[in-house]
């Protein structure tokens, strides 16, 4: 099987790695979402206060969730388009003129459009004006033919008419705390309304719109999906229990759920994984961990603030002629320029015919902490093209977990061929929510020349290296027990630089004067460190290691450094004295500087605190410059 030749990929460096890119989405894979928020009076009831949570209304929680989600979207997927739509409202605002539905919008933004700073800002303080401008009202009341939920679905579907289903994902995210919207209706009315609403939902789904439900749950009161919503969103009986267990009770859970579901799984690559000769399976790779960096910078004209176009041209250094991008590269070697064509370089990099080839297995203990180069890639099987792939993958996965082994494989893609370790990861769940998905993690292994032997760098054959005594180790262990971060997880800490970056941008985008204060969560817990118990174990450990010499040992090494600076100071003083021996202005004007030695010249420069580098001419030039001042 031949791989496609991609000349660009050959010269691509890390920064352009498609796997790194996968994190930030582009316009071509955008999603269109409508946040459909129930605004019935029931949503404005206060949530029964649990613990120290503040008394917040359901509506407040829903809005907060949407705002948090929009903030993530504007950073990660700013090409996504969103609309905010309330139903069960007093006022109506929608193109269809349907009652009880209000499409919220700001400025000249279209109803379904990319999220803007202003939209987020106004939405987050919408509650203050909500009662006055939009108003809450039960839209489905006994005896009326109005059906606000039906209307809402209809409006949302109309909003999502934009763009073809083939190029964009379309979603409808429904927030409500009413599990039985037609509960107040009776008999034929109820049946009829339920039927037409479900039909509307089905029509939307037939058009490629997915409907997702975010029920706002009250402690001790069940949100019964089976009453109505199971049919609307299409979950089977068996899964209802699972659905409910996946829904959190607290606001934080809801935010987490939304965040988890907001990002659609994106496949980075589909790979053939060759297990043994003649037996290959199919797997998909995903980028579950990639550093998120601030978005790209564009150059603007400082007068008009309009984006500039960057034009790249290639110029022959010898003739100055404008040339097409050359297809040949060269490398100086043995006084020659060795030429390679782009194809040859690609050829060199193509060391394997397989995309992923199993080489064998090793015990997990063979994978050392320093066997790492870049973020891992996640692998999950698929039977899309090769039926039977999943079965083999699961069997390998189970065996590897049971036998505590990882697989060694060769990852032969042309952009970045590498030896890799595949670690089987068992599924981890926490109260019904998946924390770690089942699958394998691909770890990129270093080669011999990528590993440095720093440990041996400072060994001295004359003395043995100092190794801690039993007592010292015990003191260290006691310290560790006191300074334990309970349940530490990498998800806890936000990136302070990134938060500040976007905090500033948001403020500037909204033309706010005050820049936001961003709390840096990565600082040590100073309060915890000053607890007497902690201070005591630290002092004990310190004493076991340094005895009473801690201060003196520190000042000793500082002294070493200050010795160097003392010497420098002495030199400067000396230079000052030396340079007083000459009348520099006189020497310069009579052109006799050339007759002095370099050392003499340097004395002047040193005394004046000027750079000492360069040839004699440079030194003289510098002195003349200085004298002219």
């Amino acid at each position, binding site marked *: 099987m031949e791989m496609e030749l991609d000349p660009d990929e050959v010269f691509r460096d890390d920064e352009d790695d498609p796997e790194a*890119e996968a994190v930030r989405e582009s316009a071509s894979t955008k999603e269109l979402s409508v946040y459909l928020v129930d605004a019935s009076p029931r949503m404005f009831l206060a949530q029964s206060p649990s613990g120290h949570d503040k008394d917040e209304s359901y509506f407040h929680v829903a809005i907060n969730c949407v705002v948090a989600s929009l903030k993530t979207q504007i950073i990660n997927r700013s090409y996504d388009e969103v609309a905010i739509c309330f139903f069960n409202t007093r006022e109506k605002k929608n193109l269809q003129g349907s009652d009880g539905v209000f499409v919220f919008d700001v400025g000249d933004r279209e109803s379904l459009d990319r999220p*803007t*700073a202003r939209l987020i800002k106004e939405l987050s303080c919408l509650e203050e004006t909500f009662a006055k401008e939009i108003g809450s009202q039960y839209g489905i009341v006994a005896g009326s033919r109005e059906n606000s939920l039906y209307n809402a679905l209809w409006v949302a579907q109309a909003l999502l008419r934009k763009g073809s289903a083939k*190029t964009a994902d379309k979603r409808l995210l429904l927030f409500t705390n009413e599990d039985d919207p037609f509960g107040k209706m009776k008999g034929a009315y109820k049946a009829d309304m339920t039927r037409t609403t479900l039909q509307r939902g089905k029509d939307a789904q037939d058009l*490629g719109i997915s409907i997702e439900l975010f029920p706002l749950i009250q402690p001790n009161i069940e949100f019964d999906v089976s009453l109505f919503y199971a049919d609307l*969103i299409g979950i089977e009986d068996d*899964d209802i229990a699972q*659905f409910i267990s*996946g829904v959190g009770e607290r606001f934080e859970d809801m935010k987490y759920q939304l965040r988890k579901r907001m990002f659609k*799984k994106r496949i980075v690559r589909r790979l053939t994984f060759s297990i*043994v000769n003649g*037996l290959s399976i*199919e797997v*998909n790779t995903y980028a*579950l961990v990639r550093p998120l960096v601030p*978005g790209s910078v564009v*150059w603007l004209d*400082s007068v008009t*603030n309009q984006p500039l176009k960057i*034009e790249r*041209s*290639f110029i022959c*250094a010898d003739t100055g002629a404008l040339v097409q991008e050359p297809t040949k590269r060269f490398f100086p070697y*043995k006084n020659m*320029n060795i030429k390679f064509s782009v194809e040859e370089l690609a050829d060199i990099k193509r*060391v394997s015919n*397989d995309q992923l080839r199993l080489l*064998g297995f090793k015990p997990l203990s063979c994978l050392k*902490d*320093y066997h*790492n180069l*870049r973020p891992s890639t*996640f692998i999950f099987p698929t039977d899309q093209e*090769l039926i039977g792939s*999943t079965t083999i993958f699961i*069997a390998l996965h189970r065996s590897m977990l049971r036998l505590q082994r990882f697989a060694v494989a060769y990852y032969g893609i042309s952009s970045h061929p590498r030896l890799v370790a595949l*670690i089987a990861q068992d599924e981890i769940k926490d109260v019904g929510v*998946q924390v770690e*998905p089942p699958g394998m993690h691909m770890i990129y292994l270093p*080669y011999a*020349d990528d590993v*440095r032997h*720093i*440990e041996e760098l*400072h060994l001295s054959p004359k003395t*043995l*290296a*100092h*190794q*801690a005594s039993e007592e010292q180790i015990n003191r*260290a262990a006691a310290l*560790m027990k006191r300074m334990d971060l309970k*349940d*530490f997880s990498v998800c806890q800490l936000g990136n302070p630089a990134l938060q500040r970056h976007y905090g500033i*941008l948001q403020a*500037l985008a909204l033309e706010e004067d005050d820049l936001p204060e961003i709390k840096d969560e990565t600082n040590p817990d100073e309060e915890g460190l000053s607890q007497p118990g902690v201070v005591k174990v*630290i002092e004990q*450990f310190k004493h076991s290691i340094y005895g009473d010499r*801690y201060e003196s*040992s520190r000042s000793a090494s500082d002294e070493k450094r200050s010795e160097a600076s003392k010497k420098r100071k002495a030199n400067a003083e000396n230079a000052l004295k030396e340079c007083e021996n000459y009348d520099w202005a006189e020497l310069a004007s009579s052109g006799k500087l050339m007759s002095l030695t370099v050392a003499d010249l340097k004395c002047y420069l040193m005394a004046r605190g000027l750079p000492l580098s360069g040839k004699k001419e440079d030194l003289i030039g510098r002195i003349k410059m200085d004298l002219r001042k």
Partner: protein
Amino acid sequence: MARNKEALVVLLDVGPSMHHILPDVEKICSILAQKKLIYSKYDEVGVVLFGTEETENEVAKEVGGYGHVFVLRNIKVVDGDLVEALKKLPRGTFCGDFLDAIVVGMDMLIKKYGLTNKGKKRMCLITDGCSEIKDSHEGSKEDQVNIIAEQFTRYGLKLECIVFRGSLRPDANETVMAENDRILNVFPKKTYAKTIYVENPTSLLGAIKTRNIFPVTIFRGDLEISPQLKIKVWVYKKSSEEKFPTLKKYSDKAPQTDKFATHEVKVDYEYKNHENSIKYVPPDQRIKGYQYGPQVVPISSDEWDAVKFKPDKGVKLLGFSDASNIMRHHYMKDVNIFVAEPGDIGATLAVSALARAMKEMDKVAILRCVWRQGQGNVVIGALTPNLSDNDLVADSFFFNILPFAEDIREFTFPSFSNLPASVQPDDDQQLATDNFVQMLDLGPSNNQQEELLPDFTPNPVLERFYNCLELKAQNPDAMVPPLDKTIRRITEPDAELFARNKSIVDAFRRRFEVKPNPKLKKSSKRLGQEKPSGSDDEKVLHDFPTLNVIDTTGIKTAAQVEKIGDLTPIQDFEALISRRDSPEWVNKAIKEMSNKIYDLIEDSYRGDNYPKALELLEALRRGCILEQEPKQFNDFMRLLCGFCKKNDLQSFCDLLASKGFSLISKTEAADSDASDEEARIFLIKEPESE
């Protein structure tokens, strides 16, 4: 002279027992020389062979003895001849005495440099350690080794012994080998030396560092446990990827006769306003814009510097955590190593105590690090113990960077246990797999070293590059050589290992069946093709009904679009042109779209179809830019305008001109045949010509 200049003497055993491995020794040594030629051209190298027929060394001349040690090359600056010489080593006829060779090499280094260049004088010995060491006249072999080791320490010499122990020859003398091993292992205990055993040629290629990188600290300062306790540490890189060399772009514009031509190509970037594409915008009129949603926020670098996140330099402990809380797959980058500040006994002890306690309690330390003042961000990472088993080497820590909350994508995947029974492996299959995983073992065992140990595995791509470079230096037209046999062990499974476990592999093979999905149309994507991220067929992939996530998008795997209909021509066109299963779809899409546009204009009554046609034309233009087919579009535009003129439909061209419609220019698609200016004025000038 370069500050980090190294002097190296290679001691190579070329005796009869080494002959089978010498081709690999030649490979590794010539690559070593090649890399020195490229990256450290002031380094000096000498070559000493032992086990040769002849004797040629100064020690033999001065004091006698030291037979069969042959100085192939005295210590001098690396050159092309060295690469040549190492590529074809002579085969020796005697059993070599490596201790003699070490003495000869040491003598060469001491004579040339004396006490200077401490720590930058190195000897590298490659032997199989199978030949007997002669007894010394004075004292035991141990005494002799001790004397040599003392000299090493005194003169700051380093010794690296690589002992090749492949499959044993039947005549191998195990007593001699054990004796030799004992001697070779004395060095690391006494002086700057290490001894490495390798068991296969592939590891041999990886056992020698082919490129000397002078280690530089990335941080020197305090590891702050608390404000009261600060430990002095130095931080280095422990692993760092050696990148593929950067090649310059080659220009052949210089005349052949120009001997001093650089052949380099400069890349020039110029900034232009969109609308006025003739004028360049000088640097002082440019400002950086940061994207926030659809808005671009202009901020000057000064302003940005004033407000951006500026953490203070320092390495601080946040606390300790159970090692199980840190997932291996969360390690983000290459790895750092923390060592105690050299010479600081307190720091060495503190690091040792913490590392050993961490190991005992299975803990890691979580740190917040800012290596340099002015660094744009902090890193959070985990410190793990790296305990030393050599008395001369101190304990240290490894440090791995961990992700921030923002760096993690929490996708939900189906539980394996929830997948349908039809894809679950049965007991027999599981058993076969267990055997398979167990037998295909590359780990260490009683009689075997770990295979493909990263530390001893050479980089196949770089190996091949340097190989090819040397070939091309001799013959510029040389083809890229096939992957070396020894290197192929890294990219392909070990045939011998598979053959040895044939029954188990076969049993595994028999238990499973993989067949192509019959439901998939032939035309659909070929498996195995590399696919960039974000391609549109990702959305079509739906592996299994996900049970714990409610997801209704699965229904839109609608039939693929085959032609452009009348109802939704733009959508159809977009779907068609982005089909990847055959390159023909692009042409078909463009052709059909062109015909649609002709039809619309032709059937137009007083321009009533013009807006529609314009819409389609816009879509076609977009598509052609996206698919890099500017020529097709521009040709079509030229034809269309001609067609309009002939058929009295000039009004359509006027409409296009008024809308600012243009050809696809070079800036929009590199392959375009129209310059920016040409594209812009195309419609404006066209009607006036003829």
